């Protein structure tokens, strides 16, 4: 009897300790994020203004704004996403739906994606420079940078999309086939919508990585800070701008902080938008 009571007390204590541990971890993570945010706000908020967003940089970025840099960043991002997404998602569908599990083909593709995912971004930069800038004669341009980023995005987009597709219960495929639906129809109407939130989350991760990328762009899209006229112009990405301001430009700390603030807000905004989008897609599919 006594033993039972003591055991119960012990178990309660253990449960309590576990809870404390979990809360501490959560608190720690939030604290890091909040600290970062406060630091950014303190350093950059005073410098941030509407003019900062809409004006061109002057005096190596010490004065003026980041308009041209934002445009370059968005163009690089657009090129990267528009080229990587179709390739990655089609590969994911192929791997998850049409290639038998354990076949050598699937293994080979997955292996190369794993390797690709582990390659440091500076190596991507060198490759992009050699291949896109020099071999394809695209030069230091937004196009080269975007295509290099696309190569970096491939593994992350493919593996998340494949995981999302595989997480769709097999019974949907069985039930769809039992109703005489073709595989394409089942894929289009059932499996892709069910996997859409995960695929959107993967896209987010990818965009986040691409937004924050510096090293791979250093040798490909270059760091010209003027407004790009076309995709073949060199353009400086936001992360590269922050790097340049804080490393190479004395007195560039304030605009660097302000740019970082813009970058983080952009990341947050994209996250929220994509979450809304994934949710809306799911809902509209449910309703139609």
């Amino acid at each position, binding site marked *: 009897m006594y033993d039972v009571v003591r055991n119960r007390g012990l178990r309660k204590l253990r449960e309590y300790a576990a809870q404390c541990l979990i809360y501490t971890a959560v608190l720690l993570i939030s604290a890091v994020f909040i600290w970062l945010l406060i630091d950014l706000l303190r350093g950059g908020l005073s410098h941030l203004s509407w003019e900062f967003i809409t004006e061109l940089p002057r005096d190596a970025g010490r004065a003026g704004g980041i308009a041209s840099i934002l445009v370059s960043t968005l163009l690089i991002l657009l090129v990267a996403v528009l080229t990587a997404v179709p390739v990655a998602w089609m590969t994911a569908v192929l791997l998850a739906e049409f290639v*038998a*599990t354990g076949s050598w083909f699937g293994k080979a593709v997955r292996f190369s994606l794993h390797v690709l995912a582990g390659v440091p971004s500076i190596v991507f930069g060198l490759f992009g420079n050699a291949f896109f800038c020099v071999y394809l004669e695209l030069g230091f341009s937004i196009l080269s940078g975007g295509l290099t980023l696309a190569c970096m995005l491939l593994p992350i987009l493919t593996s998340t999309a494949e995981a999302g597709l595989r997480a769709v219960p097999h*019974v*949907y*495929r*069985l*039930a*769809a*086939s*039992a*109703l*005489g*639906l*073709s595989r394409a*129809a089942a894929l289009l*109407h*059932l499996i892709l*919508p*069910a996997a859409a939130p995960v695929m959107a989350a993967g896209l987010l991760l990818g965009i986040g990585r691409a937004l924050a990328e510096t090293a791979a762009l250093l040798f490909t899209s270059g760091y010209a800070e003027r407004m790009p006229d076309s995709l073949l112009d060199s353009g400086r990405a936001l992360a590269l701008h922050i790097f340049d301001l804080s490393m190479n430009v004395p007195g560039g700390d304030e605009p660097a902080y302000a740019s970082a603030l813009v970058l983080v807000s952009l990341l947050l905004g994209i996250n929220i938008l994509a979450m809304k989008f994934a949710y809306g897609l799911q809902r509209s*599919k*449910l*309703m*139609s």
Partner: protein
Amino acid sequence: MNIEQEVGKCDPFTLGPLEAGPACCDPLPVIQVKDLSLRYNGKPALEKVSLDIYEGCITALIGPSGCGKTSLLSAINRLTDLIPGCSVNGRILMQGRNIYDRDENVQALRRQVGMVFQKPTPFPLSIRRNLSLSLHEHGITRKTEVADISEQALRDVGLWDEVCDRMDSAALNLSGGQQQRLCIARALALQPQILLMDEPCSALDPIASGVVEDLICRLRGRYTVVIVTHNLAQARRIANYAAFFWVSGHAGQLIEFGRCQKIFESPRHELTAAYVNGVRG
């Protein structure tokens, strides 16, 4: 709702009318399974099964767990194609043609042979879309026609009154019994000749199960039904024919096939007798 009443709507022992030979139960085989063997990754699950499924009748497949009843059902609509490592030998004739022929149109076959799974499998879509998706796929696209067919199918399974005012809400919000009836309606909407049901009541409470059972009874004559059930009383209540399977060696085998009454009251094989009397299995 009284289960006895629900079930009582169809005659409890169908073998009486069968002996008298009602129109629905002419022993006309629509499916002939001939020497069917089925393996998973080389491991046999069914060995040399031969049986006929008669038109308009309800055929119950009974037997202990793991004897290959589900496997036989999935062989009949070639759902086995989707199961990795599954290989089928032998023939299944449907109107004289072997469905395992190379040039068989599997999509058309599966339209002809509907299937209801053990666990309800509604798609994560609206109720309306659950029904219309397969209709669209089979070329029925006119809005009014789709709506009419959907309504008729839902009425057939007694679900119309419960869902007619929320056709656009998610099918996953329905109760388990409603989901299962939706799945049956989804299969019926394609107007199949044959309906395969894999323990359709096993995930349902007795009342919902009674409703589904009653529904299956009403399908008799219009559809040919093959039903797997572990509920022997249910098999006895609704089936015209019964097939008893048993695992001997490592593979499932058909031990006895015949009129339901025969199987339950004067089985030829002692294993059958032991199983239906609850001594073994």
